[in-house]
């Protein structure tokens, strides 16, 4: 199949970028979107041009590294998929496809489609962990936990930190990402001891990184490749208010 691509090219964070046109003929409809990008890049390299830089790692939809706006939607038009799991058969032969980086003030573009999402790492560093001694793994049944609780915590833990929620949000809010980690750890006994401290630190870090307010449009849940529920945000809000009211 043949596609007409309009791809955002930008030299570095300080330079203005723009959409550039590319034609690609030899696209197999079984290719993933990223394989199609690889094909384009091979073509560009042969022509002596700079390849289009984009983030990718596992290409199995589980690492959260890839992420781009495809036709104006985070990870493209198919719900519940990362860009690497999107296949070219989802597009018509001869289609025009717009490819842009995830955009937010807190996610500066490094080059082309590559975006600096280290703000997420710093939010996690602020409190997205539990304090436990390292060494021998503890006996698994020391802390009893119901199946439902474990499943619910795992639903929140399924966030891969790709940033589609921020890219989709009209306010560039990181509420879904931050709340997923807060809810994941608040739900299980290992995490609830530090829940108050955690939520205060993570929310404060989220604000310092320059993410916007959550206005509950719920677009993040719709575009999330892992289907993380917006009820995590409600949980975060609850934990935050509780922590503030009961603070020493």
């Amino acid at each position, binding site marked *: 199949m043949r596609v007409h691509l309009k791809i955002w090219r930008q030299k570095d964070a300080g330079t203005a970028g723009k959409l550039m046109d590319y034609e690609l003929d030899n696209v197999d409809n079984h290719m993933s979107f990223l394989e199609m990008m690889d094909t384009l890049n091979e073509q560009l390299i042969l022509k002596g041009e700079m390849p289009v830089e984009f983030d990718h790692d596992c290409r199995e939809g589980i690492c959260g590294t890839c992420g781009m706006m495809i036709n104006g939607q985070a990870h493209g038009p198919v719900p519940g998929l990362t860009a690497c799991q999107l296949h070219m058969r989802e597009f018509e032969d001869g289609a025009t496809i717009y490819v842009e980086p995830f*955009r937010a003030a807190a996610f500066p573009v490094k080059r082309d489609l590559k975006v600096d999402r280290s703000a997420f790492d710093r939010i996690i560093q602020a409190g997205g962990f539990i304090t436990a001694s390292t060494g021998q793994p503890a006996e698994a049944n020391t802390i009893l936990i119901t199946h439902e609780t474990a499943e619910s915590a795992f639903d929140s833990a399924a966030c891969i930190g790709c940033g589609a929620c921020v890219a*989709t949000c009209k306010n560039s809010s990181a509420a879904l990402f931050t709340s997923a980690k807060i809810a994941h750890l608040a739900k299980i006994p290992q995490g609830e001891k530090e829940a108050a401290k955690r939520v205060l630190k993570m929310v404060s870090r989220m604000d310092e990184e320059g993410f916007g307010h959550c206005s*509950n*449009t719920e677009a993040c849940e719709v575009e999330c490749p892992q289907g993380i529920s917006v009820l995590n945000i*409600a949980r975060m809000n609850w*934990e935050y*208010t509780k922590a*503030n009211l009961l603070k020493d």
Partner: protein
Amino acid sequence: MNFLKSTLSRKNLMALTGLFLCFFLVIHLLGNLQLLLPADRAAESFNYYSNLLSGNIFIKIISYVLYFSLIAHAADALYITLRNKRTTVKYAYDNRKQASKWYSRNMGILGTILLIFLVIHFKDFWYVYKFGVIPYDKNGNKDLYVIVVHAFKSWWYVLIYILSMFALGFHLLHGFKSAVRTLGLYHPGYAAFVQKFGMIYSYVITIGFAVIPVYVHLTQFGLWN
């Protein structure tokens, strides 16, 4: 201080003031339903009710909470909107809107329509009742009923009210659910109930308030007169 400045706390202020305004709308609508009575009974009952409210210390306190809520809700919305302008970057090709409802993304515009409506509404009724020259009815109460009926004489004034009430309806449709969510109701069962309740509430408030000017216009000046 950090607590008061955080994005979550600013949203909590929006939610609390918003929910108070939601509560006020119910009381306001219940009072206004008297306007649907036959004309002579409506006049007597509505004027008595207005007089009762204006003389009550409890209502006075509520009214100050109301003024505060209106101003804080609007001011906080402005602050949040301006801050969010700095957190976002424009896309060259943007197709994100299909992931959410149009009214959830345009609460600011709906809110601005409501603010303009409120200026008109306060000027024509609140200000006139409190500070204007106003006739008295036969029971010695200020005759607000005459003012109301006179206002709804023009069809375009009725139209402004209907359009504003639809703006209110969409504002509530997102606002009620969003406020409760912001305050942290995360239980899936209750969240589903709130969603349904919010929807029914929004419909009742919108239709209730929109029907009154139409009814008054039609019975006093229109086809049904």
